[in-house]
């Protein structure tokens, strides 16, 4: 814009207030502002009114797809998804054919990462473990977001007795030991004989939602009295609409941060549950299962533990990056001017 400005003096001659006259320096600061009729402001201000104004989400999407952070993370996630659903494209060795003859053997042709204690191929197990781990991480995070998000938003926004009931319910669930709950859930008639990824997801959601609920509640409380909410209500928006359209979108930052890290911790939580015999059955391969099984050999054969942990790290990293990009896109203030 500045290049179009032409220096003019008449409009901008410094007017020194009378009261300060005695103290000001004699230096005259010149301000250069173009005369109104000469600036092409009209062209700039001329918004295309035929197009409906972009919603927050559309605006965010438009911003998002141009961010390199988003593109990298999206590519990574797509890659992980492909590995999860088509593992045989990436590994030709059967991950379940294990023989003690190969126990703790190092890498050799066809087995680039060596073997586990049981003589299973580390690389193949890493590839085939992607599906269960990713499912546990993603679906638990989604479940926790839905349950915890709704509970927390309602509690924080409405306050009063709704808050009292929902927040205290969260306290009760938070206080229950996960392991105890898991032992009981695994034993329900529906799961006793067909334990699967969903059993683990359900358990982790039941005992994990209060954390997101707390974070959401805090963020909503912070924003419920913000000026833009008052303004939207003054413009005639109902209380509930104000919550959905203004309070929640503005409260998303901490929720996204916690959710993107939780995704990783849920995958690891599955490892702990499996370690204690209340997670995935042994027939389901997962990074968590493999990490737990490799723990006693960490001194002598750390590679077995390292590789599933690396796979887990890359997945978590891609979701953290996605979260960062999403957060930036949703926050109009953070956008580069």
């Amino acid at each position: 814009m500045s290049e179009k400005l032409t220096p003019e003096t008449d409009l901008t001659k410094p007017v020194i207030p009378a009261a300060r006259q005695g103290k000001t320096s004699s230096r005259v600061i010149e301000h250069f502002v173009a005369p109104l009729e000469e600036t092409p402001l009209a062209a700039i201000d001329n918004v295309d009114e035929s197009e409906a104004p972009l919603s927050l989400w559309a605006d965010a999407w438009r911003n998002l797809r141009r961010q390199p952070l988003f593109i990298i993370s999206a590519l990574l996630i797509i890659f992980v998804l492909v590995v999860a659903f088509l593992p045989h494209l990436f590994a030709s060795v059967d991950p379940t054919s294990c023989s003690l003859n190969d126990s703790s053997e190092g890498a050799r042709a066809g087995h680039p990462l060596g073997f586990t204690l049981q003589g299973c191929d580390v690389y193949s197990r890493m590839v085939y473990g992607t599906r269960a781990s990713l499912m546990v991480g993603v679906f638990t995070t989604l479940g926790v977001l839905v349950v915890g998000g709704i509970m927390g938003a309602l509690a924080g926004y409405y306050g009063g007795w709704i808050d009292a009931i929902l927040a205290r319910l969260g306290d009760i669930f938070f206080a229950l030991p996960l392991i105890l709950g898991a032992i009981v859930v695994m034993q329900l008639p529906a799961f006793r004989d067909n334990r699967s990824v969903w059993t683990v997801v359900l358990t982790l959601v039941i005992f994990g939602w209060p954390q997101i609920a707390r974070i959401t509640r805090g963020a909503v409380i912070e924003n419920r009295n913000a000026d833009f909410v008052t303004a939207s209500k003054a413009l005639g928006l109902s209380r509930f609409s104000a919550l959905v359209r203004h309070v929640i979108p503005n409260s998303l930052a901490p929720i996204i941060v916690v959710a993107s890290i939780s995704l990783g911790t849920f995958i690891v939580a599955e490892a702990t549950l499996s370690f204690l015999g209340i997670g995935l059955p042994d027939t389901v391969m997962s990074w968590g299962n493999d990490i737990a099984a490799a723990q006693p050999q960490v001194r002598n054969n750390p590679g077995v533990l390292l590789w599933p942990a690396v796979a887990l790290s890359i997945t978590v990293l891609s979701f953290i990056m996605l979260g960062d990009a999403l957060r930036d896109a949703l926050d109009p203030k953070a956008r580069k001017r």
Partner: protein
Amino acid sequence: MRFSRTSKALGVAAVLAMSLTACGGTSGGGNTGAAGGNTSKAITANGTEPQNPLLPANTNEVGGGRVMDLIFAGLVSYDVHGKTVNELAQSIETTDSQHYTIKIKPGQVFSDGTPITAKNFVDAWNYGAAAKNAQLNSYFFAPIKGYDKVSAPKSTLDKMEGLKVVDDTTFTVDLSAPESDFPLALGYTAFYPMPESAYKDIKAYGQNPVGDGPYKLAPGGWKHDTSITLIPNDKYKGPNKPKNGGVTFTLYSSPDAAYTDVQSDNLDVLDQVPPSGLQNFKTDFKGRFVNQAYAGNATMTIPSYLPEFKGEAGQMRRQAISMSINRQQIIDKIFYGNKKVATEFTSPVLDGYDGNLPGSDVLKYNPTKAKELWAAADKISPWPAGKVFTITSNIDGAGNKEYITAMANQIATTLGIKAQLNPIATFKQSRDLINSKKLTGASRAGWQADYPSLQDFLGPLYGTGAGSNDGDYSSPAFDAKLKEGLAAKSVEEGNKIFNQAQEILLKDLPVIPLWYQAVQGVWSNNVTNVQFGWNGVPLYYNITAK
């Protein structure tokens, strides 16, 4: 035993010496620092919180057991090889293995100075057996005549007719049937005497027992979940006189933590190397480790109530499974060679052990024969299509998961069926499945002897209707042999017959023996003369501090 923040700077060894002797109060200001073994300096060892009050008849697990065995002495005790030697007993005499006369050495006293009399034994045994006292070890008194009456539900009787005090140092024991190995059992925890004063407030006594062993509990020595401090009992006159100034058991919730403590000389003796240390303990502790068999084994139970394992086909299948397990390979790869392949049902540390019983070939890895037997069984009654052979085990104890997974893989590969571990989160749940006969496959099992006797590995496990017969095995021929062995005139004679009984088991395979347990123990730079006994427990009283 705690280390203050300031004294820690002085170095762990010095602090140990100072605080322990101060605590023990037995040093008398004497020979601290004497070269080559210091008998007034205390040592530390690993332990776990006792699960029950410290009463002889109520201690049935190793956490309480290792304390009880130091603060109590029984009629007999077991030496390092598991040989029975008289301790309090002057003589134990019988002519028919059913009626025993027991004389105790005169002049023996409890640590509080009261004399040990025949009545102390009779009262303690009656207390342990009576139903109203709900003692976990009560079944140990089952051979004694009159046990059935005092142990009946809601029974208010508290005296067994089979026990009679003759005089201060003599009592008689009548059994309801002959049992040649009864004298062997008398060194077990359940048979320790209790002083008269115990019964006044048995609850308080269980927290602070007065015993007659080489050690006694230090005043306030049982700090729950933290440590148990024992000091020498100077009134003890038996063969196991302490060669140190006391033993403090540091209570651990996992052996991994204890292992790191011995590595950094924070703990003197550890009797259980964790799975994470099995590969390294021989290099981590050069010249300071032991690896020896003890009286325990690992087996796999295949319950007789499973339809696929009934009859002739079932017997062939059990043999096939046994031959499809490459025990030596599992020992080498999973346990880094620290166990020994089982060739029968008991333990090599016992008197009467015979590793070459006829029929023990069935315990050798033989994939060809295994496949043949499996196919032959399929001809009689086919293995259900898609049926998975499961091995149930609790996995809250360390190290079960790894070997069972390996075993399942071997069975699956050899026999061409599906086999896998069925992990159970808690011990109580796995016990429930086993007790209620709800297993749909095999289960992990094992046995650790209470006293060094072949019979202790056979009768309680495979006798018809016996208490720990998890697989409901029942064989009239085996039961008859067992009875014959018990009625034998001597322990040696009995052992021969018990081994004949084992030959029956080798054919039927009610359980599949896997390997003999071995103890891997390590110790710090601060102690010497560490030996482990027949049961895998260190001989604490022999250890000396440097």
